[in-house]
């Protein structure tokens, strides 16, 4: 039996130290555990401070005793290396573990054990925990805002179709991959706009599906006989011409009464709200701010002084002011700048304002990417005889954008997190709806549940976005 030196554990008495240490750690954890889960204070006969400090003290000694290097026991070495390196670290470790143990019971009880979800009035919530009944009853409002209940399928259908259309890129074959950029930058936003405008808002339908299908089918059949050189122009122009001629010339009588063609009830944008509005606003701002930001970034790097200074001024202006003042401007100041009889919808104004605001941030991010590219890339492209646009589209931008994926993802995340601010102009997305529901006299006093619910949803969205951007970053990482 070697001599025990409790201040300096060593390998010789490994087992003794190990048993004593583990026992002390176990006791300290058990004490906190019992105290936290079963509200039993084993050391209640001691003075309060000592009883409070005791598990920390015991655990600290225990961790000190087992801190022996190179024991050969895998788990012990892992423990010592990761959470038990020094005395200071051991104390922090213990505190963190104790806080976790202490905080589990109240959280569990609030979220699940003492929570209520049954019933549909405030009286159903009897427990001391959360009242999920409130969320359950208000869920429709939180998701769809004041949108009429009977019409909500329109929003669902639009989102599902847009999601399906948006996932085209995932299934595209090699042959169509080169058209994907065109699709996402031009066609998809346009389709999305049509969906939102005609479907969700129920605006006047100037597009009629039956004519569209006829025009499409006829032009495809005829298209087989068109020479290859003209095909692009043919498919760009002929269906539109056919459609217009079908609608306005051949069946002129029918289309005269536009009112009849109104497929859906008009739901004004003031009634939109909830999570769906969050999605709509962030979706469109995301689509618009990217190209604007790209042009601004190119403008800021331009060799032409006027363009450069205008871009700099524009970018610095938007970056220097808070979004809330921009929204104030869009709601109270901007109408003054428009002709008197000209009306622009609140939602449209907000989307323009947020897009311009975020575009300035996107521009700075992209500029970072442009600056990071070596000069050789520009010189090489120029030496091949490429012009400004060709050089940027084919050589510079693809590389620069790849470099700034994380930055752009951060900007988009900021955009999503900024959407609640539209409450300034009276549009109520998820957070706004929560504030409205909170003041309902039948449902007073459930602010906490509402905010926790919204926080969880936003957290999931933002976390998923950041993880996705991380994956993209890895996917497009090319060796340079």
């Amino acid at each position, binding site marked *: 039996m070697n001599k025990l030196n409790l201040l300096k554990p060593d390998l010789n008495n490994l087992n003794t130290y190990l048993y004593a240490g583990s026992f002390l750690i176990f006791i300290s954890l058990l004490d906190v555990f019992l105290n936290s889960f079963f509200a039993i204070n084993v050391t209640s006969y001691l003075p309060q401070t000592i009883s409070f400090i005791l598990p920390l003290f015991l655990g600290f000694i225990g961790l000190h005793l087992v801190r022996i290097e190179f024991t050969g026991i895998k788990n012990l070495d892992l423990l010592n*290396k*990761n*959470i038990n*390196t020094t005395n200071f*670290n051991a104390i*922090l*470790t213990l505190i*963190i*573990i104790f806080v976790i143990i202490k905080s589990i019971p109240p959280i569990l009880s609030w979220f699940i054990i003492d929570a209520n979800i049954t019933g549909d009035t405030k009286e159903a919530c009897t427990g001391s925990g959360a009242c999920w009944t409130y969320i359950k009853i208000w869920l429709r409002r939180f998701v769809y805002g004041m949108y009429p209940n009977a019409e909500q399928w329109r929003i669902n259908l639009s989102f599902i179709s847009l999601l399906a259309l948006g996932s085209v890129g995932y299934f595209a074959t090699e042959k169509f991959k080169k058209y994907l950029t065109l699709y996402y930058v031009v066609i998809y936003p346009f389709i999305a706009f049509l969906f939102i405008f005609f479907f969700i808002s129920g605006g006047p339908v100037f597009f009629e599906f039956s004519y569209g299908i006829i025009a499409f089918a006829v032009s495809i059949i005829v298209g087989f006989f068109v020479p290859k050189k003209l095909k692009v122009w043919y498919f760009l122009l002929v269906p539109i011409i056919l459609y217009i001629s079908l609608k306005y010339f051949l069946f002129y009588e029918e289309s005269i009464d536009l009112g009849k063609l109104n497929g859906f009830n008009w739901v004004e944008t003031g009634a939109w709200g909830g999570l769906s509005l969050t999605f709509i606003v962030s979706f469109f701002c995301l689509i618009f701010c990217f190209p604007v930001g790209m042009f601004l970034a190119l403008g800021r790097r331009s*060799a*032409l*002084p*006027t*363009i450069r200074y*205008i871009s700099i001024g524009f970018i*610095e*202006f938007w*970056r*220097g*002011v*808070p*979004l*809330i*003042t*921009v929204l*104030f*401007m869009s709601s*109270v*100041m901007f109408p*003054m*700048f*428009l*002709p*008197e009889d000209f009306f622009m919808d609140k939602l449209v104004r907000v989307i323009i304002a947020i897009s311009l605001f975020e575009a300035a941030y996107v521009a700075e991010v992209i500029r970072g990417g442009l600056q990071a590219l070596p000069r050789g890339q520009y010189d090489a492209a120029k030496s091949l005889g490429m012009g400004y646009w060709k050089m940027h589209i084919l050589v510079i931008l693809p590389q620069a954008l790849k470099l700034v994926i994380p930055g752009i993802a951060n900007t988009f*995340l900021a955009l*999503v*997190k*900024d*959407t*609640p*601010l539209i*409450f*300034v102009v009276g549009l109520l997305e998820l*957070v706004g709806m*929560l*504030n409205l529901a*909170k003041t309902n006299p039948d449902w007073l006093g459930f*602010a*906490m549940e509402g*905010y926790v619910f*919204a*926080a969880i949803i*936003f*957290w999931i969205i*933002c*976390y998923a976005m*950041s993880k996705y951007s991380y994956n993209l970053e890895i996917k497009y990482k090319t060796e340079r």
Partner: protein
Amino acid sequence: MNFKLKNIGPQLITIAIVVLVFGFFTFNAQMNMENRGIEFGYGFLSQESSFDVQFSLIEYDGSHSYARAYLVGLLNTLLVAFIGIIISTILGVIIGIARLSPNYLIERSAAFYVEFFRNIPLLLQIFFWYFAALRALPLPQDADVMFGVSFLTIKGLFVPRFVWENLDIFFYSIIAAAISIVIIRNYARKLQENEGKQLPIFSISAGLLIILPLLTFLFGGVSLNFELPVLKQISTTSFIYEGGLGIPPELIALTLALALYTATFIAECVRAGIQGISKGQKEAAASIGLTPRQVLKLVIMPQALRIIIPPTTNQYLNLTKNSSLAAAIAYPDLVLVFAGTALMQTGRAIEIVSITMFTYLSISLSISMLMNWYNKSIAIKEK
């Protein structure tokens, strides 16, 4: 010739578009204002504001001018920004360093904090603190005493107010301490460069900072008293605290949310900065016999700060701009007082919104100019 035309063409078109757009807007604004009978001008600033502000750092009531109301709002904004910056820096640095800790649990906890607070909209966090968390606090009459002197209630935090006498002498002593610290530091640096001796600068500076002001208490006639908040009944059911310093719950919720939110970004900046220093630097410093403390202080930190400071200033700016969310919980900041109440009363949208935006813009631009200057001064000077 051809070359020149090619360059001038796009520029002219851009200028033309900008001028046209601006002209269109100005024309419309003039027409609209003419129709409504409003005249453009900033004369309204000297008019009597006739609205009250709940919380202000300077003396203000309805009889003061709109310009004064603007100042009240601006000061409140700066107050929130100042407190928020201090708290978020301390928190951010701690968490940023914790994310690099070899201790797995600490690293995970810090990562959890960052991921948690970063991914929830700031407005939601402000609402949460204000409407959910702070509303759960006790009423003034039921509040427990904190540290013997403070009360945290639903109406805000009530702390003792400092009552100074001869405050100016105290200030002078602090300034004197600061100046002597600078001199001593310079002397210590010279001493080290010339003779290799090191002075315990930190303890000397700390000692000076504490002892000099303390001396003023003994000899300078400076005295500090505390005015404690006292519960007072104004009617059968309503109580207030009198005396002391009342910090409104809006301010608490706002600074708390801003600090917790911004701290996550600052933590990431700090982490990136420290990680950006290559391992070789640390090893090289250790190999010439510096102690771990010296390695951190003389080798790692100077280099890491060069990476950390620019993005961190950006975060400070963001915090200042985000403080405008105060309008959502009715904390009387610049946006609420000026772009909210004053605009509602005067109806002068263009003037007020432009002043508000210009204020934020000048804060941002001046700070970024300072930053650029600082960046240049600490940039690596290559030969």
